[in-house]
């Protein structure tokens, strides 16, 4: 159902640390593996071994360059999946109610049995988080691993999204962003977590932690070492004195 809940009990989402993400695509493939086998239809790959393979993925890692005016260019690896927006435009446009936002935890899902595959929700999403599966004709998107995070067949420690579990660098965090005391909320507060395209008012739940300042030495006057060689006896004299001053000598 396409109307958004007035509020959700929790705001589950991801916090992605751009300071730490090395762009390894592990989260991309773990997501593909889990979601091919689980929630809804498999994520198909059209022309899998051909000239223009085009598969459905729910998570993708972009790479950008930032050129600051006074320091070397930086590279930022940038994973992106559904941001589980509070004000999800993808939901309200859906004519069938297949797209909906759960009032319980804020997860935005597609009920594949109701989806006509019109694609409008993907058009409405600013973030490119929805891909229409070409084989199945239904809309696919990140489920926040709703079939993992509550899954009683999984050990408790594994009840996190597949992408979070697999991220080798620990750049992905999962939790309740509606709870100011949750680890993720604290992280967002500490590190200045940000929204993507805030001006479009989708009010994304997922937050991005910006890279820490880079190349400080290029712009600041870091200290350099003072020579001892100028002292009497040069380096070797200094060494003898230094060793003599050491305990045990």
């Amino acid at each position, binding site marked *: *159902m396409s*109307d958004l*809940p*007035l509020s959700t009990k929790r705001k589950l989402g991801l916090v992605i640390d751009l300071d*730490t*993400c*090395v762009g*390894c695509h*592990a989260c*991309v*493939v*773990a997501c593909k*593996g889990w979601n*091919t*086998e*689980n929630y809804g239809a*498999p*994520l*198909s790959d059209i*022309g*899998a*071994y*051909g*000239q223009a*393979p085009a*598969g459905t993925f729910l998570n993708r890692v972009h*790479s950008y360059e930032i050129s600051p005016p006074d320091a070397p*260019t*930086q*590279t*930022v*690896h940038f994973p992106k999946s559904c941001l589980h927006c509070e004000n999800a435009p993808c939901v309200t446009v859906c004519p069938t109610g297949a797209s909906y936002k759960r009032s319980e935890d804020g997860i935005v899902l597609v*009920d594949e049995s*109701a989806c006509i595959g019109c694609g409008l929700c993907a058009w409405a999403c600013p973030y490119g988080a929805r891909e229409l599966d070409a084989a199945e004709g239904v809309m696919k998107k990140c489920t926040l691993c709703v*079939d993992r*995070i*509550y*899954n009683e*067949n999984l050990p408790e*420690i594994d009840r996190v999204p597949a992408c979070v*579990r*697999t991220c*080798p*660098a*620990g750049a992905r965090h999962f939790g309740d962003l509606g709870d100011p005391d949750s680890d993720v909320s604290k992280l967002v507060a500490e590190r200045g977590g940000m929204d993507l395209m805030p001006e479009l008012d989708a009010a994304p739940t997922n937050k991005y932690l910006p*890279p*820490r*300042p*880079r*190349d400080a*030495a290029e712009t600041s006057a870091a*200290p350099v*070492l*003072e020579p*001892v*060689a100028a002292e009497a006896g040069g380096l*070797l004299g200094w060494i*003898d004195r230094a*060793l003599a001053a050491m305990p*045990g000598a």
Partner: protein
Amino acid sequence: MNPFAKLLSLTRSPEPVVETSPRVSQEIRKTTCYMCACRCGINVHMKEGRVAYIEGNRDHPVNQGVLCAKGSAGIMQVNAPSRLRKPLKRVGPRGSNQFEEVSWEEALDLAVEWLEPVRQKHPEKLAFFTGRDQSQSFTSMWAQSFGTPNYAAHGGFCSVNMAAGGIYTMGGAFWEFGQPDWDHAKLFMLFGVAEDHDSNPIKIGLGKLKKRGAKVISVNPVRTGYNAVADDWVGITPGTDGLFILAIVHELLRAGRIDLDYLARYTNAPAIVIHAPGTDQHGRLLKDEDGHLLVVDRKTGELMRYDAAEVEPSLTATHTVNGHECQTVFRQLADKYLDEQYAPDAVAEACGVSPLRIRQIAAELARVAFEESFELDRPWTDFRGRRHDKMIGRPVSFHAMRGISAHANGFQTCRSLHLLQILLGTVEVPGGMRFKPPYPKPVAAHPKPHCKVTPGKPLDGPHLGFVRGPDDLALREDGTPARIDKAFSWENPMSAHGLMHMVISNAYAGDPYKVDTLFMYMANMSWNSSMNPGGVSAMLTDQNDDGTYVIPHVIYADAYASEMVAYADLVLPDTTYLERHDCISLLDRPIGEATGAADAIRWPVIEPDRDVRGFQSVLCDLGARLQLPGFVREDGSQLYADYADYIVNHERRPGVGPLAGFRGNGDSHGRGAPNPDQIQRYIDNGSFFITHIPAEAEYYKPWNAAYQDWAVDIGLYDAPQHYVFELYSEPMRLFQMAAEGYGERQPPDYLRERLKRVMSPLPIWYDTDDSDDDRYPIRALTQRPMAMYHSWGSQNAWLRQIHGENPLFVSQKIWDEHGFKDGDWARVKSPHGEISVPVALQAALNPYTVWTWNAIGKRQGAWALEQDAPESKRGFLLNHLIHELLPPKGDGLRWSNSDPITGQAAWFDLRVSIQKIGEQTHSLPQMPVLPSAVPNAPRDLKWQVGE
């Protein structure tokens, strides 16, 4: 929310019910990943006997639950349409990829028919080389039993500089032999790494550093991946790291910011360098009769054994030998690096790093090493018997890989980096870099190379090893190289891993001799692992006048329809990694952590659905058919039924076998009788075994008595092996002296000058390009993509969507100078060849550098990909520009494109010129299309296993 919306939301219809607890699988089988050589633990979720999902094993020491992109895509690998299905016998001309499927019986008969006479007459005419081999202790044993000296794995073209540089200097290396103390390091400096073998551990470690807010400095011409998350980036000009490092050394020495105590106690800095010009002692280290290093004691001024209980070795003493005043290694070292040639101002331009930046980095290293030093309350006892109540942390850690090792000056650059680490006292201390068992392991504990051939008999010892001097070279009576790859010859004396990249061209040229059978395993030698793939393909197909092939027989074992398959006469189809037994052994390149010794297995979590066999099991069978000692019982019957049988029952030394865990009755670790249930015990334990080093033995391992005892206990060595780090390398001095004319074994004259220059016992830097050719001003590199493993990733339907083609990334300077636009292509030339490829801009790149992702380019028709797949159409290999020989220098000789010390392939010395061309339809060169060796792949995939 407006009132209308509010009303709407209050009258929402009910939300669909979602099944939040689906059954994940029916069973989890735990084994070891082999989508790359990192060897992480995996949980393979099974549904109806098929692989449904793969995730990381949380208990596993290597990956601790995480999994990389490749690992997660394993399901697409074990189901890849490119899998070979049955042994193949060539029917068309070699290279045409035309085969008939034959039975295993026929295939093995044919192999015996070729190999038996070779073994009886000239065992050296078998060249057995393996690539991504993780069973080297087994394959080398097979080759040794066969009797050929011509065995090695791929280390020579991979990163032998790193391994040898580390082992010769400190008895252990980066690569997969050592790792930063991620939990304590506060400053981490990374040289020339895009991915490395320790894929997941490095990422886990970086994550830890980031979490603690530790600082990361990366030195790399390219800023991606690990280098992208580094706080500071030094976009160095390729090939100049040695200079940059020695300038830092210069700064540290000048300021006296070095760990004197560490140098005096744990290194050969206090050793006395004999000054005796004109004799065969000049430059050797002073020793007692039993060969123990001597040092001057600071308190008494007397000479003492370096390991004497009471000694306080002096770094600055002088000592008179035969009337000549001799200095310590440290004095020589200080004199050398305090020279102005190593001053930041002198090196800045060559390195592309400003003098101020070099000074700042030196200061930062010193500050963190000495001012952020900390102590661990862990008493320990050193090898001199002295008790220390604390462990002193120097929280600066380094890591490096092929960016410094894959250059022709890489060995000395690696040594320079180790020098820097050691001056700061950051090896095997808290916060620094630590070895993973079975390392530390000094050169003395490694074998020497063996090459004595006796027809019909085994070789006289292991093929590979660490030479201590000219006496250990693998030379024939006449002084020519004994090995087909010329390893351990004067051209590259310390080639500890062999030179796989020279095998085909040497065999083709008959230099030093011809071979009969080339037997290769898991190496795509006609493509991405060769320099000059076009040339190599021609060598493999070239015929003598009588129509026979110059290289008469080629046997190749691969699991997939790779480019190399086309060049085999006989293809032995291997299983995939989930279909076989494997053993990641402490005798080999084990997994492991700085805090424990570990090994692991693979086991068939699924049965092959094709007529394929695990290659090691095939060697057990072939070994028996050839009656190789060690592979047959006394009655001549087959000793090991298969590889699993070998893994469990083989003993290298009494009580020590391929696997360390669960020996004897299942409770002995390290040493113990073979245990028939061992494999099951591994499986029950998640397919790995780890035994932890006691806390007091976790640091200072080479000098820590508790560690040495522990290592003996679990069978890593048979007696304690303490040693000191060799800042001054005496083996290198011995080669230098040979070049100066001392000793019996003498190098050919044309190599003398080079040996004198490069075999410097203290680290040096030299330019790898001594030609005056300025037509190729641009450096060209490759990097490993994190989501691809060499050539195998492209057959993987998921991974190839991420990296299906590769542009040449071009720096802003080159981009602007050539007026490139998006969509443009370039013609790139080297002295050896040219390619036409698409370009893309990267601003975070050294201005004089271009690069691309490694091994994405594929040959048309290979890997069960459709024709005109993007990998072939727009993808490309840089390898076409690289030659195994350097361009002629006008001296009538052809020098190999390798490090003159180790023979390491100098992939990254490539220089090119670039020229803009308009948009093209195909990258060039295009080798002729291969007919596929396997049936066509399905078009679309809708992968789901079970309900």
